[in-house]
């Protein structure tokens, strides 16, 4: 019997990265089921393919990363040593990315486009940065943005009645004023239940909210980023709506704002994508700021840009700010009056700019 050299503490909490990843997968499950129910085989094939690519790349990258001692010459032995270093996280983590990626593409996306996206996300965004925990961009968001820019025509959305049309959001890009009209073809209830055209997993708000609640209760995700992102987005959209006279006159402000929140992947991004801990700041105030930044960028893209994939873009742009938010000279985990004031002032200033840019209250 020998005495082991260890240092305190000698006990650990029963939590693991594995459990967190599986919690996210469980939260995504209803969306996956719904996607397969709505879009059938098309969806299933794309989800599985995406999973195979993401997991495959992660495993291969992990195997290649291992340094085997040069004294081991036998090829089989070398492989065995590498194989031993694999853990469940080389499956669960990429699985999460793959499902998220599958949920933000349309079910009609050509297979080759999907393959390009998935490879980009898994190799460039993750493996090149060093694998789990080291990536600074959300892999699924990178995958989506790359194909969104390269294969614009490949995006066709299938609705229940409409076979091919733009997402509800793309149709209202230029004008908020048309939302009340949009609401006539797609009611808020449809948005909630997922009776709209759109990406596979982004359309059913209710399932996204349920999944989110599950994750937050299980502490597999941080609610702060989600709440902050939706909050800042909602405030800015509310202010923007005030500039549209017909909406204000008809008292449809709330509906219009709600429509914005429930459509175009905002909820999905807020619940499943910005919450990715790897690409989030590590302090509580930091996470509030990060949510604010991403929410404001989404709002700006929707109001002034013409990109249908505004949310994923905003997330990638937000990722760039993370090291800045975490910079050691100012990152603090305590809420201070300075932080609260800063948050409120920033949100007000952005809202004010939007208000002025859109021509003031009507």
């Amino acid at each position: 019997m020998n005495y082991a050299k260890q240092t305190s503490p000698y006990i650990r909490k029963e939590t693991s990265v594995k459990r967190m990843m599986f919690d996210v997968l469980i939260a995504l499950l209803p969306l996956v089921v719904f996607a397969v129910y709505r879009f059938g085989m098309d969806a299933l094939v794309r989800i599985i393919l995406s999973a195979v690519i993401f997991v495959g790349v992660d495993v291969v990258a992990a195997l290649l990363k291992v340094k085997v001692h040069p004294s081991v010459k036998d090829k089989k032995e070398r492989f065995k040593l590498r194989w031993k270093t694999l853990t469940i996280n080389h499956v669960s983590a990429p699985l999460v990315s793959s499902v998220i990626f599958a949920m933000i593409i349309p079910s009609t996306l050509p297979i080759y486009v999907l393959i390009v996206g998935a490879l980009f996300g898994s190799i460039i965004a993750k493996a090149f940065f060093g694998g789990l925990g080291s990536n600074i961009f959300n892999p699924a968001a990178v995958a989506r943005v790359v194909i969104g820019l390269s294969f614009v025509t490949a995006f066709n959305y299938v609705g229940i009645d409409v076979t091919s049309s733009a997402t509800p959001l793309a149709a209202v890009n230029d004008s908020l004023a048309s939302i009340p009209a949009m609401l006539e073809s797609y009611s808020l209830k449809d948005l909630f239940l997922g009776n709209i055209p759109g990406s596979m997993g982004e359309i059913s708000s209710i399932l996204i909210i349920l999944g989110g609640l599950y994750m937050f209760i299980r502490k597999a995700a941080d609610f702060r980023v989600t709440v902050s992102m939706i909050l800042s987005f909602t405030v800015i959209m509310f202010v923007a709506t005030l500039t549209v006279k017909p909406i204000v006159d008809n008292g449809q402000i709330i509906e219009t704002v709600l429509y914005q929140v429930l459509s175009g992947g905002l909820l999905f991004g807020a619940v499943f994508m910005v919450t990715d801990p790897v690409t989030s700041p590590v302090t509580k105030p930091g996470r509030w700021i990060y949510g604010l930044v991403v929410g404001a960028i989404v709002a700006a893209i929707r109001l002034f840009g013409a990109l249908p994939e505004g949310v994923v873009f905003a997330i990638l742009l937000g990722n760039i700010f993370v090291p800045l938010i975490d910079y050691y000279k100012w990152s603090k985990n305590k809420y201070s009056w300075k932080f609260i004031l800063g948050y409120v002032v920033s949100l007000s200033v952005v809202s004010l700019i939007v208000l002025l840019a859109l021509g003031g209250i009507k």
Partner: protein
Amino acid sequence: MIEKTRYIPDGKKERKNQPVIHYLEAEYLYFPTTDLRCPAGESCVVDGQYVKVGELIGTRQGGFFEQPIHSTVSGYIVGSEKKVHSSGQTVDCVIVQNDKKYVLYENCVSRTEEEIDALTKEDYIKIIKDSGLSGLGGSGFPTYIKLETKHPIHTVVGNGVECEPHLISDYKLILERANRIVEGLTYAMRATGAKKGIIAVKKKYPELYEVLENARQSFTHFDIEIKRVGNHYPAGWELDTIKSATGIKVPQGKLPAEYGVTVFNVATLYGFYRAVKRRMPITERFFSISGDGIKSPKNFQVRIGTPVRDLIALAGGYTETDKNKVLICGGPMMGNALQSDDIVVTKTATSLIILDEEVIPTEPCIHCASCVYSCPVDLQPVQIMNAYKERDKDAINALGVNKCIECGLCSFTCPSKIHLTETMRQAKRFIKK
């Protein structure tokens, strides 16, 4: 998980219901002449000399203080030997062969109430100094130095929180000696001139509150309060205890005395009672042996100086497995791992935990921030770790690693099982260089 971890399973339930074995049979008792705080020391006895319980046998010398060493049994001095101290150091020990008669040293006679009433602050300091009392909560800091403070003290806090899991030493002491602890508190109050005394215990042990509250009734001419504080970890950390007991926030790096508060562990308060009332040093303490590496975990009440190997034998010895054992002196969150079981019970040793070694594989950090949320002193362990990896002295300093109290919560909570606390220690050493 992404959350603040405040509560850790405390394993006391199993421990506290076990009976306490009063062990007085040790053949030889060992008294270290040096320890971590006192690098020098000498004995003032010669081989073959007969000593009695409570008799002075040597002195340990620290940088600016000294600590007398007392025999806790009667018998003959039979030389000296090297043993392992609970801190892991190897130290010289004076050996006393126990004649098991437990003859009391002549000077150890009780003081009368009148004598105690006549004691001045200087008297108290001398009494406590001569009794060799030190921070029995584990700090080992000489108690008389605390009494010598120039700052006016208004409140004495008795710390009975014992927030480390598995430890039951203070728990048992309060249950069995509540009256003397409260009496000790009154002496501590007189010694410091404090008007108020508070004893803090965990909320989840109402039985401790009961006994102390009962004991308090006999000292109604003192303003004493028994306070039930949080069950979280590290509620027994001095600054945390002060905050929950008195509401005073003492910033890190400041002395509680500057804020008019001074904290003594309940065992130290019991030491006050022994020294002031009975003219005796601390001779016994509760010591438990637990963990899955030992056959039958047990609680003991033993003389200070008892070799722990005796107790291991009484607990049935190690379990016969091929696994390596982890020997922890102290609690599972902050204790020291020892490389030998050749240790003796010292004043500050609370327990020995023997675990089968289990190697926990670590995963990459996923920035979940649980460590940041959980740190009781608001550090950002993950950022310090990253800065340390970059060997970025400025960043490590700016992130305040020196505030780390090495409580172990960050390692405990990390879902990737990264050993953050050890990294904090390394980072501390690194910036000192």
